[in-house]
């Protein structure tokens, strides 16, 4: 039982990361109806930005001396690192949209998909050129502590992942459901023509969506690097694909669905690794994807749409 609970916690922590990335896929799919293949690589860039800005942040906010004790300075520094990374990635996301995707706005979806693959390959390989292909170790930007509840041990990092994820989700929900920009996002995702007839500048909303999704991916990159402090330029490929699976699982375009899909996939993967074999860690995501697409192509919560003839 303890082992199961432990696995569940690990799975939820991993799932939170998937959920944060999946939200970006789902949001972009919502407004542009295409899979932003390069989204997983933004997550990678997020981690590397964190790696490079940490020394600068630490110069301004010196971290605590004892890494095993909670320290306000360390926590604040970690938060600043994450915020900077989110902002940088948001800008990167907007830039990519502006330079590459916007000129392709009304082209066949295949063209856009191939372009996205191109952007993804570019980010990975340019990352290798810029950062070096070898894994880098990510600094301890948070106090490293374990909390024991009976036989169950929860890492401080996992708590940080949960708390941050929840905060980000609440913030996102507020933006999407309550603000003018968020309502415009939803309107646009339903009907772009009607949105522009309302005076909505679709370009602005789409850029905003890209920024928002990329910021969430950057946060996921940092959170994951806190847990697994070895980062490399190709680290975004698999989580990217898995987060996409999570988005599809929840019904692409559906925000709560992406979160549920992410958590579900994270738990599923951890259980397979824990109880079956770590060799099938990656296969499980693809098996889930194939299963869901073949039997419920609109995801667990989606509804069937028919082509108009």
């Amino acid at each position, binding site marked *: 039982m303890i082992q199961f609970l432990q696995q569940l916690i690990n799975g939820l922590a991993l799932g939170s990361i998937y959920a944060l990335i999946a939200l970006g896929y789902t949001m972009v799919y919502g407004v542009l109806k295409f899979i932003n293949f390069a989204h997983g690589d933004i997550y990678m860039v997020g981690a590397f930005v964190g790696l490079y800005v940490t020394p600068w942040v630490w110069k301004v906010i010196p971290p605590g001396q004892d890494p095993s004790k909670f320290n306000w300075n360390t926590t604040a520094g970690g938060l600043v690192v994450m915020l900077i990374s989110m902002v940088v990635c948001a800008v990167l996301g907007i830039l990519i949209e502006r330079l590459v995707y916007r000129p392709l706005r009304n082209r066949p979806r295949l063209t856009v998909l191939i372009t996205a693959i191109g952007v993804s390959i570019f980010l990975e390989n340019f990352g290798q050129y810029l950062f070096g292909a070898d894994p880098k170790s990510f600094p301890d930007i948070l106090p490293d502590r374990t909390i024991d509840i009976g036989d169950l041990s929860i890492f401080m990092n996992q708590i940080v992942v949960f708390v941050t994820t929840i905060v980000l989700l609440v913030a996102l929900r507020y933006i999407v459901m309550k603000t*003018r920009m968020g309502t*415009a996002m939803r*309107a646009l995702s339903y009907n772009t023509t009607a949105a*522009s*007839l309302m*005076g*909505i500048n679709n370009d602005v909303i789409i850029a905003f969506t890209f920024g928002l999704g990329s910021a969430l991916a950057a946060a996921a990159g940092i959170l994951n690097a806190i847990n697994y402090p070895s980062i490399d330029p190709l680290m975004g490929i698999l989580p990217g694909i898995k987060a996409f699976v999570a988005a599809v699982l929840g019904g692409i375009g559906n925000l709560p669905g992406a979160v549920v899909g992410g958590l579900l996939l994270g738990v599923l993967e951890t259980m397979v690794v824990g109880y079956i074999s770590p060799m099938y860690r990656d296969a499980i995501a693809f098996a889930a994807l194939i299963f869901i697409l073949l039997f419920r192509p609109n995801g667990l919560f989606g509804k069937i749409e028919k082509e108009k003839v």
Partner: protein
Amino acid sequence: MLQIRDLHVNYGAITALHGINIDVPKGSIVTLIGANGAGKSTTLRAVSGITRAQKGSIVFDGEEIVHLAPHKIVGRGLCHVPEGRMIFANLSVMENLLMGAYRRNDRKAFGGDLDYIFDIFPRLKERKAQSAGTLSGGEQQMLAIGRALMSKPRCLMLDEPSLGIAPLLVKTIFEKIVEVNKNLGITVLLVEQNANLALEISQFGYVLETGRIILSDASAKLREDPQVKECYLGG
């Protein structure tokens, strides 16, 4: 208020509009009638900027708008209620109405405008928290018009407001169009297949056929025109 001159629109190799001219005087209701595929919707789409015109000029209130993006045209006070209503089914009725006011910054004035819309379409008030996708066809059309009114337009373009709506509701909606025109002084360009009804409430009419204006006259005269009678009035 609105002058369309020599407007040409092509879809790929197909020419949808072969240089049409339309004048919509301030405060009037002008209607555009014609068969399916004649180019009525294309005309409105070109004016609101959703479809790009290849040639020609569209002057709204003294300003050339033919090259403006749709959202800017809305900002100028020209609002298009598209064919098929295109309400946001995933948003609530209230959110739909607020989207209509997207470009406005005078949030304090929203209340009064909402009251006016709920006054002419009481059904919307009853359903304001409801998801717009659950509305009936007629209610959706009311919402589409209400949403357009929230942008405080000076000119309203309506594309087939009677489409797929029960006859009784069509009557109500046409009455409201006249009311809005009279009370708020909003100029109306109405595209309609139901020529009888359209010519009844309008002052001037244009008949479009395969992308060309073949007739234009005062509505009362068009209703008596033998050709119009045969083709469009089912006479």
